[in-house]
């Protein structure tokens, strides 16, 4: 009871603290100077149609690198936590039920489509809403579907690890390329910018997003597999 009262009080207090921000700050009328600068400079400087992508991959690319690192650390943590050996008998539970016919069929049908869609999303991140993370997640859904459809099957774990490692290394290498060929680490202008709106444009951004997409896809698949509990 006491606890409930305290929880209630804590939430009231928290809401009270949120009041001046979430409820009183209102809606902005104009983008601020920084936003305007991004909107105006991104197409010109980086030839990206999607300004958000320009910010994510280039201007604040260091954040994105960090973001990849976060996901990577999480994957590593999950991988260390959930091995078959550590989960023991509780992990390797009795044989799972086979998936239904509907699920099996859908999985067969959708897997390649989903993968393709994911690739599309991350290769077009500089043009349309989308990007490496989004694409990676879509690819991971394909893996999820397959896990659900065939619980007994094993992912090509070695391959996944290799993809994950190499795409990560490629990201770093692309960043270094920017440092050597352009003006700084992670600068996508290491490659020719091309024409705004084309697939091959925006310098290294599509490449970066592609390796990020592969890496995220591999990592999320790895996490899903680990959560399944039969990772070696």
């Amino acid at each position, binding site marked *: 009871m006491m606890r409930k009262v305290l929880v209630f009080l804590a939430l009231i207090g928290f809401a009270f603290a949120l009041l001046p921000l979430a409820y009183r700050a209102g809606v902005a009328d104009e983008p601020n100077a920084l936003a305007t*600068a991004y909107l105006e400079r991104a197409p010109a400087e980086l030839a990206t149609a999607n300004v958000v992508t320009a910010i994510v991959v280039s201007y604040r690319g*260091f*954040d994105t690198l*960090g973001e990849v690192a976060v996901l*990577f650390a999480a994957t590593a*943590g999950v991988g260390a936590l959930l091995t078959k050996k550590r989960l023991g008998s509780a992990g390797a539970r009795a044989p799972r039920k086979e998936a239904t016919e509907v699920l099996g069929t859908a999985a067969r049908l959708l897997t390649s489509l989903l993968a393709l869609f994911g690739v599309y999303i991350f290769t077009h991140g500089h043009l349309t809403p989308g990007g490496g993370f989004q694409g990676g997640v879509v690819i991971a859904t394909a893996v999820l579907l397959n896990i659900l459809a065939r619980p007994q099957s094993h992912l090509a774990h070695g391959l996944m690890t290799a993809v994950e490692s190499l795409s990560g290394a490629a990201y770093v*290498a692309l960043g270094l390329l920017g440092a050597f060929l352009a003006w700084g680490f992670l600068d996508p202008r290491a490659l020719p910018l091309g024409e705004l709106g084309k697939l091959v444009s925006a310098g290294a951004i599509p490449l970066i997003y592609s390796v990020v997409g592969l890496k995220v896809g591999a990592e999320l698949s790895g996490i899903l597999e680990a959560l399944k509990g039969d990772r070696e």
Partner: protein
Amino acid sequence: MVNPLYLFAASLGVAFLLPLVDKLGRKLSLALAYLTLAAWLAAGLSYLWALSFGGAQATLFGTAGFEAPLAIMLRVGLAEAAGLSALSLVGLLAAISMRNKLRDSPIGGLMTLLMALMGMSGIVLTRDLFNLFVFLEISSIASYGLIAYDDRKAALRAGFKYMIAGGIASALYLIGVVYIYRFTGQLNLDLAASSPGLAGAAGSAAVFFLLAALLVELKPFPANGWAIDVYHAADPGVAGILSGASATALMLALWKILPLLGPAHLSLVAGSGLLSFVAGNLAGARQGNARRMLGYSSVAQLGLVMAVIALNELYGLGGEGFVYLTAGGLLLNHLLAKTGLFLITEKAPSGGTTALGGLLALALVGLPPFPGFWAKWSLVQALVAKGQWAIIALILAASLVEAFYVLRWFGSLAKGKADESQLEPRASLFAPALLALALTGFGVLSGWNAGLREPLLWAPFALAVLLYILDRLSVFVKAPLAIAAVAAFGYLATPGLDGLRQFFALMLLGGGALFLLSAMRKAGPRRGLMPLLGAATLSLGAVLLADSALSFFFAWEAMTLFSYLLVLRGKEGEKPALSYLSFGLGGAFLLMLGLLGGAGLWPGAPAGPAWALALAAAGILVKLGALGVHVWLPGAYAEADDEVSGFLSASMSKAGIFALIALMAALSLVPAGREALNQGWALRGLGWLGLATALFGALYAIYQEDIKKTLAWSSMGQLGYVVLALAINDQAGWTTALYLALNHFLYKGMLFLAIAGVVQRVGTRNMYEMGGLIKKMPFSFLSVLMAIIALSGVPPLSGFGGKWLLYSSLINKGWYLEAAVAFFASAVAFLYLYRLIHSIFLGQPKPSQALVKEAPLALTLPQGFLMAILLAVSAFPRLMLDPIMAIVGNRSGTILAFEGGRLSSPLGYWNGTLSMVVTAAVFGLCFVWMMVNLHNTQSVKQFNIVYAAERPHTPATTHYAFAFFEPYRKALGFLTRERAERFWESAGGGVSALGGALRRLYTGNGQTYALHIVLYVAILYLIMGVL
């Protein structure tokens, strides 16, 4: 300076590739990871070098080829470089000490380790608010993974709690950062801080969320249960990284966002920090588990650093340099020491573990020469200058509690009582050793920077190190070496000193050398004794050398430190050492406040305000063991090694006397001070305190069965007389004080040395288990006999001179009742003195002690030396009194004067030489008379006594020694009911109960911890509204 981005690239590249590399073997992975960490360390050090010596300026690095405000900026300044180096060092060393487990765990462990440290480095370097969030998350998420890496269940439980706390903190941070963006249009820290958008309630609330997130990450009380659980449960290496490296990074993050904070925010930080410091230490006081205790200490230390940073902003304590010195010093001290200690907790007990654990623990509690000492000094100095007494009191009180429980742990470690379940038997001590080395190095550097450049002040530490290195050698090698060092010190130091200090140098250094000599009474290396005793002796010398407040306090603390370790070395020294140190530090803190307030204790020092003098005097009185704060004394003196007890009583106690004299001397240099002294009730009070100490010291002494306890209480009482005499504060009083001090040195030295021999030969300290030793140990008997004659003040030995001087000056001063009580006290002294010599040397011998031999030469030699001096100054009092009276000089009129061999006061006179001659003549005549009349003497055997026509059979029943003064206890026992002991015990119990109540907050339920956090934030917000 190398662009730090490359380091991030290297870390990430290595981490990304590790799963592949690992297929080639774990050794390669480990090597690669360590190399990366080493690269960070090298970079950090190179920045530090470039910025401090290379003339480089703080540099901003853009990312992705753009600059702020478009892009994220990294900054390398002095603080960043220092933080980076420190956390890389800690991370590397922790990683090295974790290598066995990293080898056997999945590769994820190594990966998360790399990521965690990279995240922390990012926190240190970035200047972008959102990027800061990303790095905070990298480090926390990697830490979540790292906590679980070796799959210990407790760590998993704690890790989940950590994640809940981290999740809440990151939500808070995001809300804060996004609204700061909303109000300022910037994510770059510097640009946001200079933007006007943050003024007003909404801006303040946005900053509050950001701050709240950082505060939660910094583990403030009471929202820190999760952190303590993690420290408790995680692998010690991980705990070390979290407590040391992560805390450093977070603290730098807090430091970074300072420009955003308004006064209300700063008050929150300061208040929260102080509360954490106090509450963390209180809760730690009850903790038995080493790691959890270190956890409490960690949150406390972080709180203090946090508070210092905020207080500097609030009160303008001293600008950026001040923050580097204090907050930086405290943080550095914390991170190196705490990491080292965490690593130690899993090592099996050994000599090395003890030494390193001791070094780190002593560093942690802020003893010299470690960085914490200097930082605390400057902190308190600044606070005193601003008159922030309440804060000072809080900080010092909590520091004392911290010292108590940290050293309690060390005490049990030193006694081999570590009861950790997960101990690594063959663990290498490389990492903790390096950390300890770094601590020492930084400490010496800080001291050098603080202006302590006199090499002799550092000599105690140098000698301790030197002798520790040689510790395996026999004591017969080390003792002469140590004595030579003391002699060299004396040769170098004393010529430049004034008379008073030379006089004390004789007792302090000479006494130290004497007791060093006596340490050769046992063969073998006697490990630890020589380094500590030698260093303690030199630290006494250093006290005399001090010429500034800081150097005095430095030497004083060094003395406390070494004597604490000496007491701890005693067989049952654990508890007494702890109480010794608690009181020693408490006294030292009072002294520190006095020194900082302006009380001068060195030649030519100014006299400070009255309160400063009172505080300094109070601190010194604690060290002297004045009644009420004496409870440490009997145990410490009794349980230390026997020669150490003598050293403590004969020599070290004189350092306290010296400090008191120096204080009064400084005071009487200024007319105003003289006036204050002459009419104040303060001196009368001091006199009564000294008197009460004398009386109760004697009263307690008579009931002791333990011979060393008897001597300990006796020492306390004798020092009481000195204080009383000093309080008289005129020429006669001072002469008396110095005379008594020197006498006490002589006879207490003899007593302790003789008793050391007895205890060594007999193997017990209970007097009733001895008896009749006069025939076995005649020399020791003679020594004790002379000493007790001198101590009791019976003519013709020099002790009577002390009594005569004391009563003469007391009556002359008009302190009649004091004189009467002093008379009573010295009569009581007869009781224990008689008991001492009777129970040990006279009466019926014990058959088991039939083969006891005279004490070894190493003990009898110094006794003989002291005896010769005692006889000389008894026969010719001027030998001793002339120099003393020259030192005292003409203090507000001459009261005592010599005419030939006759010393006269306005009341009477005393001719030491003549009384000696008369006594000797009378004694000689009586002796001859006896000899002439002796007929046909027969020596009879044991038990051949007139015993109601029966012959007794056992010495145990015949030797009347146990509970010797029972009737006295019946009559006056109500006086000695250990009220002070009970008072301090209940005070300690109160603190402990408070801590016990506080730590009930930490229920172990992660959800309750989450509730604490949310409530903490909400309450903080409300408080900010009020501010």
